[in-house]
């Protein structure tokens, strides 16, 4: 049985973890799955790329990714989506970086949000989310 973690340790881990894995429930329809990525606070620089089963589907998207069509429900069954976003703090702007990820078109809307404060001006944070599309 794994050793229980203290609240302090859990908080530290949760506040610094920038990778996330989750499943997204879909059906066998032709409905399109749409993806949104809203990185950073106002004034920060962000770059996103994404892979679907290791095939690059988004390359060097600056800023937000709005309503990107991943494909039909039935076409995504059993596939892995990996999204990487780097957010760079610009001097003077807010030091709190963030990553908001949304999926629509499956059985239910999905949203994941994480944020991390950089220690120094100009620091970067890389966020990653991996999604497995499933009907089970």
């Amino acid at each position, binding site marked *: 049985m794994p050793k229980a973690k203290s609240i302090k340790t859990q908080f530290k881990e949760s506040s610094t973890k920038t990778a996330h*894995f989750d499943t997204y429930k879909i059906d066998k329809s032709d409905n399109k799955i749409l993806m949104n990525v809203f990185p950073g606070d106002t*004034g920060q620089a962000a770059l996103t790329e994404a892979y679907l089963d290791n095939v690059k589907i988004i390359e060097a998207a600056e800023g937000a990714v709005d309503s990107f069509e991943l494909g039909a429900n039935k076409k995504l069954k059993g596939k892995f989506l990996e999204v990487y976003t780097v957010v760079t*703090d610009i001097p003077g702007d807010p030091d709190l970086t963030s990553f908001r990820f949304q999926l629509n078109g499956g059985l239910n809307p999905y949203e994941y949000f994480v944020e991390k404060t950089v220690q120094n001006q100009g620091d970067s944070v890389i966020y990653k989310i991996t999604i497995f599309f499933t009907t089970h």
Partner: protein
Amino acid sequence: MKKNILFFLLTVIFSAKGFAQVTVDSTIKLDLLQSPASPAFNILGIALNDIERPTDLSSFALSIQQATNNFTTMPNSYAFQVAPFLLTKRKYTLNEFDNGANAFKQSFLISAGFTHIGPKGKEDIDSLKTTKVGFGIKFSIVRPGWTNSTRLAYNNLIKAQQQLLDDARIYEQNHPKKALLEKKKLRLKILEDKDTLTANETAERQQLLEDIATLDGEIFEGFTDELPSTANYDNAKKAALAFKTERRGFFLDFSGGAALDFPDNRFSNSKVYRAGMWFTGGHENGNSGFSFLGIARYLYNPETIFADPGGLVKGSNVSTVDMGGRILLDGKEKFLFSAEALYRSILGNSLVKPSWRLVLNAEYDISMNRKLTFAFGRDFDGTISKGGNLIAAINLIAGFGTDRKISPKN
């Protein structure tokens, strides 16, 4: 004592970026200062310049104006401005500031100001001091784009970010646990192909999901742990630190506002001191060379007019139209010289003659967050005003807690 308390309260309440000033407005932010463009100060008639440059905003800014030449008394003019659209859930990443698509929402600000001074030339005479409150709005109609140097700095930053993403992918591909991760992913895919799962398969699937989450997290966190010590991370940091917003091109801003006067400092007794609207436009040349600005302004003065505070046409609802220009010379980011001239016409009243205003202004960035300013000129009412003061900004920044910039210099 009351002023001290008021100042302290404002410091605590508005624990956001602020800037302090002696005689003139100055904005303090991490690596650049800029005189603020607050319509509240304009409508109150206490702004340093009537013709303001376009600005990029942060969501909140607080300004303080001191009417004396040193810090022997507390400031007696305050203004804050809020960019409501920058406070919403919708965020604007850096690239979205290089086009006009979101210029209105990114530039729209609401400002409010307060002053407790006497009429021009007699600001410090207690018996003549009245309280005035001003409200204003401002937004860009046409906003210039980034300069080539700003765009180049941004592109360098994007290249550095791309390198970080490439590094992340390469790190993952070469990680010793990557093969195990891929193996578990493959098994999960095989189970996904089945229409129904047995109890054992369901349990296996659940375990696979947990293992994949753990492995994926471990591998990526391994990369992020090493990331700050890499050369490419430093490159991205250098690119970010080198970025400075600079715009070049034609612009057009709209401003408007109204000010109330409380002649006996009682809330129940107020009158409209001034109301108006104005367009400011011209050609912004970035942080070097000459910039040319112009203004067309309409002001309604129910009780008195700026050109004749002695009361020659007091209560006669005089309207004025101001037309003027301002030329600015930026010198290697340290010096800023400007000259502003306005001509004021009186509408529907022959008792007051047209008037003019001419102000020469010089600013010098002494060091980070410190600015020396000097202004000399002739105002509409004929008084000569001048002022030049070192900004003891550090003392006041500490009070306001500056973790956000007010505006990049344009």
